[in-house]
């Protein structure tokens, strides 16, 4: 059993129609075991009242759902325009040269994270990080833990780019 039945029941009750619970329950399953297993798909399908094949097709449509357990340290680097202009390609290439890449940690690219003022932006495990430089992100994937040189990406204010302009 991947999901907690009491919690599932409560989540189903939040929506006027049951099938809306598909994405919330898939998220819950991924939070609990790190990925979406066949068992999880079955449980979500039963709770939402839709065929398991349909839940499977939903899982493959959305890029954030994983069918396999990820490495403990996972860095996703934005490769869209503003981050590319800040050197995202070069950063990713350099990180992928590091020993342990693919086994101990992974470096993937993603599209714009709505944090372009913090280019190069990324997601480390489940938190937005940026601006990323090589030293900071290398430390992140090697040692994990607090983001170190990669400051957490709070928002920039309006009127003055409060934190947004914090780039050298």
């Amino acid at each position, binding site marked *: 059993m991947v999901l907690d039945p009491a919690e599932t029941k409560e989540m189903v009750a939040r929506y006027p*129609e049951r099938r809306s619970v598909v994405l919330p329950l898939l998220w819950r399953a991924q939070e609990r075991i790190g990925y979406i297993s066949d068992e999880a798909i079955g449980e979500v399908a039963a709770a939402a009242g839709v065929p398991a094949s*349909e839940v499977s097709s939903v899982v493959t449509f959305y890029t*954030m759902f994983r069918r396999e357990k990820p490495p403990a340290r996972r860095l996703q680097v934005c490769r869209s*325009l503003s981050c590319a202009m800040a050197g995202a390609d070069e950063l990713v290439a350099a990180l992928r040269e590091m020993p342990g890449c693919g086994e101990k940690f992974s470096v993937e690219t993603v599209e714009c994270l709505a944090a372009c003022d913090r280019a190069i932006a990324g997601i480390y495990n489940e938190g937005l990080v940026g601006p990323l*430089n090589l030293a900071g992100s290398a430390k992140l994937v090697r040692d994990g833990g607090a983001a170190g040189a990669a400051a957490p990406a709070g928002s*920039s204010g309006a009127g003055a*780019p409060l934190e947004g302009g914090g780039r050298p």
Partner: protein
Amino acid sequence: MIMRLLTDGIGEVDLRDIGTYRARGGYRAVENALRRMSPKEVADEVSAANLRGRGGAGFPAGRKWSFLPGDGRPRYLCVNGDESEPGSFNNRMLVEDNPHLLVEGVICSSYAIGCSFAVIYLRGEFYEGAAIMGRALEQAAEAGYVGEHILGSDYSLRIVVHRGAGAYICGEESALLESIEGKRGHPRVKPPFPAVAGLYASPTVVNTVETLCCVPSIVNNGGAWFAGIGSPKSPGTKICSISGHVRRPGNYELVMGTPLRELVEEHAGGIRDGHRLKMILPAGASSAAMTPDQLDTPLDFDAMAAAGSLLGSAGLIVCDETTCAVKVALLGESFYAHESCGKCTPCREGTKWVEKVLARLEGGQGRPEDVDLLKSLVGEIGGGKCLCPLGDFAVTYLGSALKLFEDEFVAHAHGRTCSERLQARPTASVATGEVLSA
């Protein structure tokens, strides 16, 4: 000119805390609406305000709300917080740093349209935003602003946060509804429009985060007051996200109609040292490029359209002279090829084909006929041939760049590549190898 209507207090106080938010006059709009106004009166003020949708198209919110048929079916409000257009990051700021303003906007708007179930849809990558919004809703419920019999009235409202899971197309309003219904995010054939058959085939309003955040001040101050701010045909403020080769990237809330030049040169601090402006993509990767001679264009819906581009959600990407126009096109096209939902052939196949041609051009393996090939592909994919506007988005910048920077495409087609291409920031220590071996 800066005017902090939606961003007042951000960066100064913790607006996530309901006590702080209320101490600054927060939730007064809910009290004003529910205690002193009928739903119709709230809707009338929003119409009088001429509040135009901030999600891109600029459609008047009051008019959209008026399309809901009154046939007894339940009505729904869905907040579009999918914010995925490369260059836009204003909604994330509102969600993370002023969550109660959105909750308040949702309550007033739901009351106005007669809805008792609202969904705040946030893109999956907003882990922190979803947690912050969840806490804000709990605080609002404790304070009696959300739930049964709000402020002792007959009006009840439930609000849920619904997270996406990585799909740009879910920002398109009908794909967003599919996603809330637990399905893949494929746009629906329109008509019927969401106002007639939206969530669960019921009348539904979809508005973006920033649009709904304007509603509390309209309720408090009146539609006429709002209509008097900024450009007469695009009143209010717009939070402009600016990034790329400027000194101070960030969000700046400006009165509509502020000249583009003021944003770029004053607020964002101008182009980074030693460089000069080449082009601006004012509405993210899907907008026609604007050039330095257009810097006096007012930032509002109509003036930007008249200038041949778009205000959109005001995610401005600024590129200096080191930026290769072909590389920008390639990056944009890879994005759209990746994000196409695959339903329409021109979009699914065309974006991949354009991406392939651009990749060989950018890499110096271009062929002389490639420039003409790209021009014809722009015509085949764009022009409203697809089910949703993503097909058009995918070739808008490219179409503009082929006109403005044709020489660069031609040079690439003859085997040349740019010497500088898209440069890494001089500050990024990408070239230093020492950390790699440590």
